[in-house]
């Protein structure tokens, strides 16, 4: 074996280790679109609250906001699935493999916990803490899943947690922090991932 073969062997090893642990088909485009949906939803929520509907019809407004958030989540997951499947096909990988499963399960545990916790907050009337709580739990979910996908997802998770904590102490700007965390950060990281891993 000569020098070149040794380099090839090391490259093979690294690639196998990565591919078997990390789910690398995740497309940056899904982040960009999720961010756009979140910004649109935040804008609609802002308009609704500005109209003063929160005081005249509190229950209706709450249902409107929850439907908005849920619609946003479903659209984001659907889009992520679409682009990620396309990306996996392009790379000749299976979409739903062991690493994808691990990433998904590790993401889902803190995320579902956060969702239920947010419902408990709404029931208790602590509406102001819904945005901070969803940001913090989402950040924890990302950190938890990052071992099984791109390492930069961990960074994104830390930023979401910080944003959530700031939002928890600065009251009254829930929608703004929500728009930054779920909108802006998704777009920034999505663009970065797209140009770094998919366009190259």
């Amino acid at each position: 074996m000569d020098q070149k073969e040794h380099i090839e062997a090391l490259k093979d090893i690294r690639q196998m280790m990565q591919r078997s642990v990390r789910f690398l088909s995740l497309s940056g485009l899904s982040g960009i679109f999720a961010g756009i949906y979140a910004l649109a939803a935040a804008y609609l929520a802002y308009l609704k609250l500005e109209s003063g509907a929160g005081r005249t019809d509190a229950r209706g407004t709450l249902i409107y906001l929850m439907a908005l958030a849920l619609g946003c989540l479903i659209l984001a997951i659907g889009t992520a699935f679409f682009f990620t499947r396309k990306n996996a096909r392009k790379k000749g990988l299976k979409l739903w493999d062991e690493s994808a499963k691990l990433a998904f399960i590790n993401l889902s545990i803190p995320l579902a916990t956060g969702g239920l916790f947010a419902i408990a907050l709404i029931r208790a009337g602590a509406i102001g803490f819904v945005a901070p709580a969803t940001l913090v739990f989402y950040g924890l979910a990302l950190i938890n899943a990052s071992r099984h996908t791109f390492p930069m997802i961990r960074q994104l998770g830390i930023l979401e947690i910080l944003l959530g904590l700031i939002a928890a102490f600065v009251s009254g700007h829930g929608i703004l922090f929500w728009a930054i965390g779920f909108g802006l950060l998704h777009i920034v990281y999505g663009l970065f991932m797209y140009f770094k891993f998919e366009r190259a």
Partner: protein
Amino acid sequence: MKEWVHQLNKAFENRVRLGIMSVLMVNEAVSFNRLKELLGVTDGNLASHLRALEKLEYVEMKKTFLDRKSHTTYDVSTLGRKAFTEHLNALESLLKP
């Protein structure tokens, strides 16, 4: 003595075996099908390399029964981990000028 430490292990010269060891080093209880999918090799090819690694006691096979269907998984042994790490160190040291 130093020369001996930096020797490449013949058992890992084959690409399939290198692949098997790489996957098992970072994953627990990997199934036969998962290995096949990751390495993109045929059943027979994979089986023969796994058998060779088992014979050297670098890899351990575990058979469990799930709903009466046998499920075979593979793990790297302590000996295998040591041998592969030494092989990696040897590869790296050979690349250093």
